[in-house]
């Protein structure tokens, strides 16, 4: 009896797996090409998380290019777990992937994985967030985050030359550090600007809300805030709203998500410097193909950002998938 049950379990296991394996990798839709070795080369992607629309869009852009070449792509989610990311990459390397795209959980911690890929001659393209050992990778593709910060400060200066600003930072993230640097660099050019304080907003709505509430209470003169991304901007806006200071405290941010564009239209948000995740994905994949064709590839590729305000909100959404207009 016991043995029968066990056999049954093994069979169930096998069936579930077969069902799982024979399904084409899901995602962006469209007919996936054949999945076996004969179905083209294998490309692997490892993201720090897929619980973010930004990476989902980025992944779609990559998939577009790779499938257009008749190749296939495996997307893996590290769930912010660097050990899982290390294992995922090692699985891809040992399977003989043609190239690997990497969005690191820990920008210093992936050294071992990069060395392993390098040893096997597998090119690695880093997307969105940088890695410490730039010499071990083919290239790094990311938004021009410095410019994103500059654009935000410029817009603020245009609307309100005398700004007393607080910054909601996410200081462990290199991309956010760049945004704040860009913002400060531009702010220094405007004598009317004062930066009152910089606090941790952690880049999330729930963390930014209480921090912003405290800042508003501490600095009654505060009339502008720079939260480094859309989610923390939502937190800041709801703090401003509950303090009854809507319109008195202006908000400029970075990201350009659909949700933020909706808020732009209500006037609660002044601007968001939009990133183009789909474009980052596309360019990353194209860089790999250029490399495979034997062409030289730039070590660092910056994808332009674009200022979105109430005025261009609709046309931006309509054209976002196409990439930056420049």
């Amino acid at each position, binding site marked *: 009896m016991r043995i029968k049950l066990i056999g049954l379990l*093994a069979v169930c296991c096998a069936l579930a*797996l077969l069902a799982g*394996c024979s399904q084409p990798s899901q995602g962006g839709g469209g007919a996936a090409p054949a999945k076996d070795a004969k179905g083209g080369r294998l490309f692997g992607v490892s993201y720090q998380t897929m619980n973010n629309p930004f990476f989902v869009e980025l992944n779609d852009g990559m998939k577009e290019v790779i499938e257009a070449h008749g190749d296939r792509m495996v997307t893996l989610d590290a769930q912010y777990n660097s050990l899982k990311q290390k*294992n995922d990459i090692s699985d891809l390397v040992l399977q003989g992937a043609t190239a690997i795209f990497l969005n690191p959980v*820990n920008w210093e*911690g992936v050294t071992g994985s990069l060395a392993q890929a390098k040893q096997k001659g597998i090119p690695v393209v880093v997307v969105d967030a940088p890695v410490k050992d730039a010499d071990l990778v083919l290239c790094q593709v990311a938004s021009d985050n410095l410019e994103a910060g500059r654009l935000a400060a410029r817009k603020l200066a245009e609307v309100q030359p005398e700004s007393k600003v607080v910054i909601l930072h996410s200081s462990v993230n290199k991309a956010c550090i760049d945004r704040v640097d860009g913002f400060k660099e531009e702010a220094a050019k405007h004598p009317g600007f004062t930066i009152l304080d910089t606090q941790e907003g952690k880049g999330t709505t729930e963390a930014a809300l209480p921090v912003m509430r405290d800042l508003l209470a501490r600095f009654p003169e505060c009339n502008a805030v720079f939260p480094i991304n859309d989610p923390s901007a939502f937190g800041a806006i709801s703090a401003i709203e509950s303090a009854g200071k809507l319109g008195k405290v202006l908000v400029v941010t970075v990201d350009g998500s659909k949700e933020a564009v909706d808020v732009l239209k209500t006037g609660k948000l002044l601007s968001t410097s939009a990133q183009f995740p789909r474009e980052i994905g596309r360019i990353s994949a194209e860089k790999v193909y250029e490399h495979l064709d034997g062409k030289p590839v730039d070590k660092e590729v910056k994808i332009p950002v674009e200022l979105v305000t109430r005025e261009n909100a609709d046309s931006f959404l309509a054209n976002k998938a196409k990439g930056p207009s420049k």
Partner: protein
Amino acid sequence: MNAAKRMIPLIIAWIVLLILFRMKVHTFLARDNMIDLVQQISVNAIIACGMTYCILIGGIDLSVGAVLALVGTVTVSVLSMGDPTEQSILRLGLAICAGLGVAALFGLFNGFCAAKTKMPPFIITLGSMLVARGLALRINETPIRIPAQDSLFLAIGNARIGGIVPVPVIIMLVLLALGAVLLHRTRFGQHLYAIGGNREAARFTGIAVGRAELIVYILCAVLTGVAGMIHASQLYSAEPNSGQGFELNAIAAAVVGGTSFTGGVGTIPGMLLGAVIIGTLDKGLNQAGVHFSLQYILKGLVILAAVYMDVRRKRQA
């Protein structure tokens, strides 16, 4: 005997998995890929060894993930003290002792509370999990990079003996062998089964239940400490935020390997097989290109199936 017989279905299930994945991925059974598989499960298997002891006596240790992060952070902090340009055996020794010492302290605390108070281990270790996580973040909020000249510490996670066998695999095999001997060949091991089977009865037969509990939690924490060092070394840095959910992976390995949640049943070889099966699933599903959403579902179903089997078997017995 009986324990060995219980592993047969698991072995069959594993072989079925291997064959399936081999059909899908033609390099799956290649030597390098199989060595990598064992390497990938080493951290989990070492933690799961301690976890098996805890579950065996009817307890649980939820703090292992956080303790792993804390040990890594403490160890690497000590490593980066002093003159960073030169490797010092003394500092390395100090760092390892500090790391394992911290782990042992947490084990002592968990064990003491479990033995001397009426608090359930689930709650005790939930609390110490938060304390350990907080302490790790207190030491440093962001990852600390291991100084590049500490080649000995980096070797713990990354070197290969003879260019083939990874050091973490050796460490795991040695620890699991010792762990298996302790559980299956000593009187202490017998006592653990007795406590898990019936705590009060064990007490009446003169077993020092409290002392055994204390030792189990210390062992679990120290094993986690070793895993924490391998983990930090493999990642070239200590991450105060790492290890989240590791307790669940360890519990899964123990349970799939036949450890019963009600206590008193479970073996180290079984646990290792559980870890191997989960590792094989992870690797195989990755390499077969199964979408990550489907991977979670399949892993969940496998764990459910294993536990269901366990419960069925017990009812028949």
